[in-house]
């Protein structure tokens, strides 16, 4: 009972410290704190459209963060969700443009599958290299992000370019490849439903299946799993593929639900923010639902704050970084010991 109280108290301290940082920054740019906070809150809750935008932004974050969290379970530190997301986006664009005549009932499952496979393949490379040759996946996945982003740049200028326009972008995809708009005029689309279904799927995989058990065990003590006859490499590689695939689905969802064509910069760093989301959600699928909505709200709100109060949106990055650092301090056993000593 007491321990639970302490946990809440320390969480409140973390939130308080983070708010203090945010308020300090707002004061630093010389904005009125009340104006800034109210524009931040109005940016999120001001209208049903504003609230819907939070969910639109949470969709790719949720999918990519689920992917990151699966990797974390086996100790595969996947910092490459950004690249995997772009690979998913390339995959859906290419598929839909190559087979424009397919009916939606075939097209939608196909692009989802292909997007998953493309993202998974992009993560398979570092996953295999880590499992087999213990090459650091941290660096490998980041390098592959840059490769994927440049690949998009090349494709929208060459193979996938829309010949009708002089801009680097692909043609509009056939309508059969579009996700349904759920609540027009808001931009919420079926990608959100897919993300929520994936939350359940990941929960079942991680906490109910034998493979998920093996993944968790491998992440906690790979050596003991190896000695017990559990195939460590298999678990690691599968978690990498599943994680990459989910990040790939984030790309599919962005194209099919929002942009309907491939352009550069469809992701303003979703893949990186997803890592923060996964950490905040404690790598738990249900935690990630809340964390992705929270972070999306933070970003949407800070945009409104920039428009109205002139506070740069970079404040969102600072807040995310600071929040993680404060949580890290809170979670360290050291600080628990300090608290108990007092």
């Amino acid at each position, binding site marked *: 009972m007491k321990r639970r109280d302490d946990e809440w108290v320390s969480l409140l301290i973390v939130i308080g410290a983070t708010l203090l940082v945010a308020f300090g920054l707002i004061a630093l740019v010389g904005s009125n704190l009340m104006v800034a906070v109210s524009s931040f809150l109005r940016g999120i809750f001001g209208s049903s459209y504003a609230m819907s935008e939070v969910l639109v932004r949470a969709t790719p974050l949720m999918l990519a963060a689920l992917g990151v969290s699966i990797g974390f379970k086996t100790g595969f530190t996947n910092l490459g969700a950004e690249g995997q997301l772009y690979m998913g986006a390339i995959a859906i664009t290419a598929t839909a443009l190559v087979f424009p005549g397919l009916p939606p009932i075939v097209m939608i499952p196909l692009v989802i599958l292909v997007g998953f496979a493309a993202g998974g393949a992009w993560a398979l490379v570092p996953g295999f290299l880590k499992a087999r040759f213990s090459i650091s996946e941290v660096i490998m996945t980041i390098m592959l992000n840059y490769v994927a982003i440049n690949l998009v740049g090349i494709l929208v200028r060459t193979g996938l370019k829309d010949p009708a326009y002089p801009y680097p972008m692909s043609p509009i995809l056939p309508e059969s490849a579009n996700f349904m708009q759920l609540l027009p005029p808001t931009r919420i689309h079926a990608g959100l439903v897919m993300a929520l279904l994936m939350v359940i799927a990941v929960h079942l995989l991680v906490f109910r299946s034998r493979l998920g058990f*093996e993944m968790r065990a491998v992440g906690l003590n790979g050596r003991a799993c190896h000695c017990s*006859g559990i195939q460590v490499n298999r678990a690691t590689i599968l978690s990498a593929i599943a994680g990459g695939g989910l990040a790939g689905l984030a790309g599919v969802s962005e194209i099919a639900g929002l942009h309907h064509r491939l352009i550069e910069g469809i992701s303003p760093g979703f893949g990186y923010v997803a890592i923060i989301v996964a950490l905040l959600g404690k790598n738990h699928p249900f935690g990630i639902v809340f964390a992705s909505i929270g972070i999306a709200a933070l970003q949407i709100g800070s945009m409104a704050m920039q428009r109205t109060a002139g506070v740069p949106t970079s404040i969102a990055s600072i807040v995310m970084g600071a929040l993680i650092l404060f949580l890290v301090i809170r979670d360290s056993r050291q600080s628990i010991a300090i608290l108990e000593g007092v």
Partner: protein
Amino acid sequence: MPVLEMKDICKSFFGTYANRDVCLEVREGEIHALLGENGAGKTTLMNILYGMYQKDAGSITIDGHEIVFKSPKDAIARQIGMVHQHFTLVPTLTVQQNITLGLRDSGYPFSRERARCEHIDRLSDSYGLKTHSRALVKNLSVGEMQRVEILKLLYRKAKILILDEPTAVLTPQESDHLFAMFKQLKAEGCSIIVITHHIQEVLDHCDRVTVLRDGCSISTVETKGIDAKQLSTMMIGRELVPVARERQNHHMDAPVLELVDFGFKRNGGKVGSVNLSLRQSEILGIAGVDGNGQKELLETLMGLRDHEKGKMVCCQQDISNASTAERRLVGIGYISDDRHRDSLVLDMGIAENLMLRPARSTAATQGHMVNKQCMLEQATRIVKEFSIKSHGLQEPMRFLSGGNQQKLVLAREFIGSPKIIIAFQPTRGLDIGATEFVHNQLLAMRSAGCATLLVSTNLEEILLLSDRIAVIHEGSIMDTIENKAVDITRIGLLMAGVRTEGAAR
């Protein structure tokens, strides 16, 4: 006046006492034994003296001055040196670099290697501690590592030398040499504290002994005028009942496990090769000094390392190249000497740790899913059967005592009645009660027909449990003998690599 006096030392970890009002007094020029079973708090006490741990209460006086050590650095400055049971040498540095690590001499900050090596060579000559000062530590034998550790103390001019279980890595003859060297140091005015749980060692070589039990100091006595039985009672607090091992006749049985010229890679690029056969219902003990290839051999047998050559046949089935999972499915169980690293996921609970087996051999796995009900039922049954003490099936293994953790490992490896158990130091770090439990379980498995390969550096354990004893040295089996009226001297020589009469058999 004593050189060292520790008074009413208290230390607790996470709420459990490791030391409670412990007193120790060491005189100049004596060999002082610190006797107690595993978990009695001997090492903790010495780590407090050496500045590794901070005491919660009590006082330490050296040469009449009360001192407080914040770290080993302070202890070294007061001429205290300690050799830990797990050696604290950096494998990728040379002998010289390890010995002089952290010292400042006239050349600081530059390393004056030649002068240091010469000094080390002089010391090693005068104390008979042979070593190669320019060799990398990772290429040394365990015995040489110990010599390096002792040279490290001598180089730092230690007056109080602490050694934690120094004879664990030595043959009986080598142990005698070690104590002879201690006598030389003693004559020079040094005081030596030896942590041990071997009563005979205390009686043979030490001047006085302080007995610890359950974190408390029981008493300090002269070794003259006390006998083994009295010491044993002080150490354990009750009379020890030896486990009963009834002899079985099994010469007719076909072997369940056969190793034919079985070659395996050892650390440091060396290769070992063994011939062995293991029959049903027998315990084959492999005795030997630590670091002679035991761990590498067992890990190769489990498929954790690639084997070099030869064959491993289990029940007429060649499994030389099988994976770990396949070997386990054939019916081989493995008890490692390092349960935290090799056997348990410390952050998972009892129930989940019981599932740490190949998927096909777990009852709780149905298709691709886990049957939670079944998993918990199995765990409940095993906790009862092995009387594992815990606060529930989900409690992380981390919070269980070493004995209860090892019980769980045993229970898991015994699921599905394996044909063969490979056990490496199965009682390492356990107290007497848990040790007895493990011994009895191994004997029960033997009665049930299981063949056991028991590898231990503890000769007493081997003698107690084995039907036959093989001695390993430098990766090969020196000889295999029946465990009937064995000559300890002969086993000691075999452990040192010396074959005597009867070796031709």
